[in-house]
């Protein structure tokens, strides 16, 4: 029983790390630039596709990753300069409409270039093995690598945000934008850089997702809703909030799927648990979000205002 719980927690952590990579970029953009970017999922898709294409073209996974990340960074910056700049003074509804338009644009673009069918995406052969857990069962190496990459990224982000000048500007921008601009900081450039790195983080999540999920037009929208849940729980604009929120959501969702049904089975009749368990498990993260909103409307780690 404990070994099962351990393994499921590990699964939850891995899912949480994936959500974190997505949430980190989104929360920065939302918190600092005050832009609701629905197209964040499209950048995740772009990252996955560019990496698959570059991996195929170069034959080297690491080169594919580098080109995929760099490519998504560039795509993100172009999107910021061409589309988002016009949206900063607009209200959230306009931003939602415009970035929704971007989703449609990217989905069709990807379908035109690579076709509508799911693309074959594989990880490197040196990550195809297994790790023997002390519980006696095996864990896919690739998933372990995702956890490692995610945690390293979290540490780097923490360092950049709290220990560098860029991070200081980012935090200042999240707290009071007008003041930062008044102090003579080139806020335009800052925005482009932040958006580009947010895009690259989404691209990283996408390229990591490629070998385990489905590389297909529209792949980004499936994960985006959960990512919004994460940043609402964590607090908009806060990297720390995104990390904690993502790991909470990942673990709650995974453990809910794994243990809610047997748990309910001990309380109510078998057939009732059979139908209520899966339904409740898929609602769990939204219930959690509602609870957080009720008690801490700013999220667990609010970045702004308080």
């Amino acid at each position: 029983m404990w070994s099962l719980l351990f393994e499921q927690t590990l699964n939850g952590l891995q899912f949480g790390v994936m959500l974190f990579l997505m949430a980190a970029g989104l929360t920065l953009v939302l918190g600092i630039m005050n832009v609701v970017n629905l197209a964040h999922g499209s950048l995740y898709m772009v990252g996955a596709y560019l990496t698959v294409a570059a991996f195929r073209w170069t034959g080297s996974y690491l080169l594919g990753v580098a080109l995929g990340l760099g490519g998504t960074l560039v795509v993100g910056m172009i999107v910021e300069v061409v589309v988002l700049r016009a949206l900063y003074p607009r209200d959230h509804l306009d931003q939602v409409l415009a970035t929704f338009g971007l989703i449609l644009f990217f989905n069709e673009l990807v379908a035109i270039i690579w076709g509508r069918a799911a693309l074959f995406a594989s990880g490197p052969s040196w990550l195809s093995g297994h790790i023997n857990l002390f519980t006696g069962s095996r864990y896919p190496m690739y998933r372990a690598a995702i956890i490692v990459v995610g945690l390293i990224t979290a540490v780097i982000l923490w360092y950049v945000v709290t220990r560098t000048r860029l991070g200081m500007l980012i935090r200042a921008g999240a707290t009071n934008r007008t003041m930062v601009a008044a102090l003579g900081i080139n806020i335009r450039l800052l925005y482009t850089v932040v958006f580009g790195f947010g895009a690259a983080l989404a691209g990283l999540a996408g390229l990591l997702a490629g070998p385990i999920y489905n590389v297909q037009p529209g792949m980004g929208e499936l994960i985006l809703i959960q990512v919004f849940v994460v940043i609402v729980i964590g607090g908009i604009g806060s990297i720390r909030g995104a990390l904690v929120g993502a790991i909470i959501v990942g673990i709650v969702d995974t453990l809910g799927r794994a243990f809610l049904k047997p748990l309910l089975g001990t309380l109510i009749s078998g057939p009732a648990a059979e139908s209520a368990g899966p339904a409740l498990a898929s609602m769990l993260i939204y219930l959690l979000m509602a609870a957080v909103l009720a008690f801490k409307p700013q999220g667990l780690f609010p970045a702004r205002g308080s």
Partner: protein
Amino acid sequence: MSNSIRVAFALTAAAAFAFAGPAAAQQKIKIGFISTFSGPQGVMGQYMKESVELAIEHLGGKVGGLPVEMVYGDDQVKPDVGVQVAEEMLKKQQVDFVSGIIWSNVMLAVVPVVTGAGKIMVGSNAGASPLAGSQCNKLYFSTSWNNDQTPEAMGKFLQDSNVNDLYVIAPNYQAGKDMVSGLKRYYKGRIVEENYTKLGQQDYQAEITQLRSKNPKAVFAFLPGGMGIQFLKQYDQAGLRDQLPLYTVYTVDEISIPAVKDAALGIYETRYWSPDLKNPANEKFVSDYKKKYGKLPVFYGAQAYDSIMLIDSGVKAVKGNLKDTNGMVAAMEKADFKSLRGPFQYNVNHHPIQNFYLLKTVKTANGDIEMHIQKTIFEKHKDSYYQECKMK
């Protein structure tokens, strides 16, 4: 506007009418084909459309001896959009037949619209049980199957091979439950757990851990589309593919294989058709399809091809008189065309009585990954609902 211009307009209009007369008299057939052409599921519609175009090519550009005009409509996997598209086809485009439709919920919404307008609907995928039973209709034909039949065949195979301790995984929606009840109609062995996952779920690692902890002897999965691709990849990465046999329905097909490649090897499916089915019509279809589109066809396409051939047989029988609906229905009931599944008969509910085969994903000598027929599970299998059909 000067008079002379007015006269010129009047003359042009008159000329247009004069030419419109004979053009309308020259008869042609219009077929509306509804499928999903956009979004992640749009790939299925693409395969269907390609197969329809190949069917028309094989018929020399004519259906039932008449020049054909196809009208394609995208239902976006939404019943209300499907109904809207069907109504536009019937009222504005004045189509003679409607065909296609992948999803049961869309089909259930669209069939009454088409049959209500007195036109024939030829369904080429969705196999909703009510349409085979209580809601069967004289004007509705299926060139596919009833939803339950495919899992029934898998249940029969598992029962006959004395498989026990089965782990069952399916999405938590109507079709998921239907597939499992179809399986259980023939499979009487022990089921260690039925796991209903979220529809559209991406990550199955938690379920795979769960599954392994239950020590099943085999796994049954119904995870169509993208869900299947993800599950197959993750099942393989977890190292289970070689250890624990995986029996699936609507999960591994010619669309998902290119996306997962080796992760599909050794997995079983049941189906009424396969690209390697031996009959002249199918061999021609598969080789021409490969030549034209550079890939293997999928069963969605085979059914779409058959719907065009079925319409062709009906219209030929009444010598192109599209007003003779009863005559066309009577002819179509005979299923007198070269179906890609080989000859079959229609049951009283206009659903095929057909064979079901066990398929396995194998690597061919030249390295391609294909599904090959292993054995026949059911011969002339009838669906379980036709007795509820009160059609006469």
